[in-house]
């Protein structure tokens, strides 16, 4: 009896879930086949990441191999149990399964013409998947490579978590740096040696920080408050200088950072509505459109029915006012609505605004589908600089003001009331909070920031059309704050860089943008629902305690 119990315990400790490993491998194979058949590998094959070695298409495939094999290796023993050397075997097995499935695809694809259904199932894809070596050799090579990659990923599971995190960061940094280099400085990826250096650099930095970072933080915390403030000021000055110097990257990068910046601005506004107050607004684009059209109508010489033409700066306060008023007006009918009902109504509101601007009815006033063009620039650029470079400073000012307002409100009575309302509307009301006033304040503040975003957008493009203000803008901004971390102000920045900045850099991605969005959102919801930089609550009690 005792012996059986003992052996059962021993068994429990070493339970190996090989079926889960195979399952994960199969899922990986499906993902790899999917990525191939939608054409991502082909479309991105032209963009070099490491000269003579890797293209972006291959990096994506590589990512699938590493991620899924690593997952498989972890599933072998379960998340909590310590991974043994068998993890390497599990990883290799998963990698091999992915390769086998891809190989099967190649074999089938060469026998049967799949192109009737899958337009991207072309000879070029087979060539890429067989590494250019033809069917028998290439497939064997693919499987060997898959097993090796899988084994490496499985080996990653054996590393101590700090080292593993550092290595993962290094691996992610290589393609990102390379893409930045290609997109911003017209380079052609990085050389093999360069990639190695980037990898080593980021791994070392991350590993170094994880071992001394905590100590450093403690040491800073131990400093007298005057010196702490000085350090903080130095840090912020560095950030400010960096932000001010960004346009020096050149006209094209400036355009991208302007776009990212507008999304940051809108994200900060929507973060107040959705993140702080918990009001799911899917029609946020409406205020963006109203801000842009206010600027267009008031500044463009094309608008002849209006006797006066303002400069952008004169029109800006009016655009903000329009945002505040329309935010309040939208708020009134939806005061009684919660959750999904609110989402549907605001969704409709966003569409209504777009359709109004598109309508024939208002065509004499706002140009219908022809939109409004010849919107003046806000600031004439100095010699040698482009409009986009100068515009960044307006965007930056907007972001700084918005972030300041959001921070101030967050740590005030209003912010706490918003959050209380988000947590439990009934109890918030039972605390004496006037829900009508509190909700309308959130809508109006968010709408005003969105209108500023629209105003900048109008002068950035100098022309606006109704189709620029579709539902997708609302979805994008929402995705930015979800990925960044609901309610977190730095999260908005990270979310916008990841979801708006990266796709702008990877032009080939444009076609797959929504696919990637969907995948990223699903992944985030499953693995990190709190976002990349989750909201942190400020310590009030201890903080005050130090002073007393």
């Amino acid at each position, binding site marked *: 009896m005792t012996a059986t119990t003992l052996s059962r315990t021993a068994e429990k400790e070493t339970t190996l879930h090989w079926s889960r490993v195979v399952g994960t491998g199969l899922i990986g194979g499906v993902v790899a086949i999917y990525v191939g058949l939608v054409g991502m590998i082909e479309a991105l094959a032209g963009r070099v990441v490491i000269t003579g070695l890797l293209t972006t298409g291959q990096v994506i495939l590589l990512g699938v191999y590493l991620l899924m094999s690593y997952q498989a290796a972890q599933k072998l023993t379960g998340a909590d149990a310590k991974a043994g050397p068998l993890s390497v075997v599990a990883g290799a097995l998963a990698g091999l399964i992915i390769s086998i499935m891809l190989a099967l695809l190649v074999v089938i694809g060469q026998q049967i013409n799949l192109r009737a259904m899958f337009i991207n199932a072309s000879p070029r894809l087979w060539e890429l998947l067989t590494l250019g070596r033809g069917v028998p050799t290439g497939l064997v090579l693919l499987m060997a490579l898959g097993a090796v990659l899988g084994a490496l990923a499985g080996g990653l599971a054996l590393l101590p978590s700090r080292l593993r995190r550092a290595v993962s960061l290094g691996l992610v940094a290589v393609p990102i740096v390379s893409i930045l280099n290609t997109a911003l400085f017209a380079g052609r990826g990085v050389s093999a040696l360069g990639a190695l250096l980037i990898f080593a650099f980021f791994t070392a930095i991350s590993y170094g920080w994880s071992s001394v970072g905590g100590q450093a933080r403690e040491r800073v915390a131990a400093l007298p408050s005057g010196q702490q403030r000085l350090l903080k000021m130095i840090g912020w000055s560095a950030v400010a200088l960096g932000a001010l110097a960004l346009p020096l990257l050149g006209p094209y990068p400036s355009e991208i950072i302007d776009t990212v910046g507008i999304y940051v601005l809108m994200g900060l506004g929507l973060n107040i509505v959705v993140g702080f107050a918990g009001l799911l607004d899917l029609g946020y684009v409406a205020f963006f459109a109203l801000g842009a059209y206010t600027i267009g109508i008031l500044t463009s010489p094309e608008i002849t029915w209006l006797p006066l033409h303002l400069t952008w700066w004169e029109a800006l306060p009016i655009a903000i006012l329009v945002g505040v008023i329309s935010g309040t007006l939208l708020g009134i009918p939806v005061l009684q609505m919660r959750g999904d009902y609110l989402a549907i109504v605001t969704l409709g509101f966003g569409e209504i605004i777009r359709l109004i601007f598109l309508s024939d009815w208002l065509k004499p006033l706002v140009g219908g589908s022809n939109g409004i063009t010849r919107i003046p620039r806000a600031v004439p650029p100095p010699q040698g600089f482009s409009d986009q470079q100068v515009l960044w400073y307006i965007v930056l000012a907007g972001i700084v003001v918005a972030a300041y307002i959001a921070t*101030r409100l967050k740590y005030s009575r209003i*912010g*706490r009331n918003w*959050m*209380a309302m988000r947590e439990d509307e*009934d109890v*918030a009301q*039972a*605390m004496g909070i006037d829900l009508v006033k509190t909700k309308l304040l959130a809508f109006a503040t968010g709408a005003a920031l969105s209108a500023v975003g629209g105003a900048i957008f109008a002068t950035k493009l100098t022309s606006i059309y109704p189709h620029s203000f579709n539902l997708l803008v609302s979805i994008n901004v929402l995705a930015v704050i979800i990925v960044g971390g609901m309610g977190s102000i730095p999260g908005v920045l990270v979310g916008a860089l990841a979801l708006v900045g990266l796709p702008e850099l990877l032009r080939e991605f444009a076609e797959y943008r929504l696919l990637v969005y969907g995948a990223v959102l699903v992944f985030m919801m499953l693995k990190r629902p709190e976002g990349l930089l989750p909201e942190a609550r400020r310590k009030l*009690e201890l903080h005050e305690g130090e002073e007393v």
Partner: protein
Amino acid sequence: MAPILEAHRVTKRFGGLTAVSKFDVTIEEQSIHSIIGPNGAGKTTFFNCVTGFYRPEEGSILFQGKRIDGMAPDRITRSGIARTYQNIRLFSNMTVIENVMVGYQGHLKSGWFGAVARTKRQREEEKRAVEEGRRLLSFVGLAGRGDLLAKNLPYGDQRRLEIARALAIGPRLLLLDEPAAGMNPVETQDLMNFIRRLRDELKITILLIEHHMQVVMGISDIVTVMDFGEKIAEGTPREVQTNPRVIEAYLGRGAVEHGVVAS
């Protein structure tokens, strides 16, 4: 003493079900008044009518002589009634002290522009709110835990926090919905002393729903017994304990007939 809350023939129906039926009750200023009754007797529904979460179909509720039935919950709260919930309802993702500060929000006047401009008044108010929060946290025995997230507190502390949050409103009347639920005997004794302190030190009138008879009989001045939405008995704890209708409601008709609950 003058009555602080008077309910006259309060009736609340849900479809065909009459949850509270022609319920009369008068709560004296600075008393501890309990409402007891079997599950589903309509006690919490009555609380919800008082706090404005439900609007009674008939009858009237007067607080300090003014009618409050039909008023919005936030206005009723601002007039001086606070409550806790049977199933604890904290703002889970806010810190402990922030929860209390939300309760205190009615005492703060600064608005949007005050917060953004960081006016002197706003800064002073914030400071006062934090101080008040800390004071209330130590009053309920949660000193030093203010920066934890509310959801990370153990169960008993969550109950304390809910009371601290209600006290921050600065109520004249505090409705406690089963505060002793899930407490061990030592905690229950602490709670009883604590409720007495609320009345004696803060001069707050307490209206209590409780199933824990030791608590009810130990601290109540008056006990009102409800069954099927109606008042079936009222009096001091001793009077109520010996009332046959009460025993019947709790233990069934047989208990009275067979004299199970003689003494």
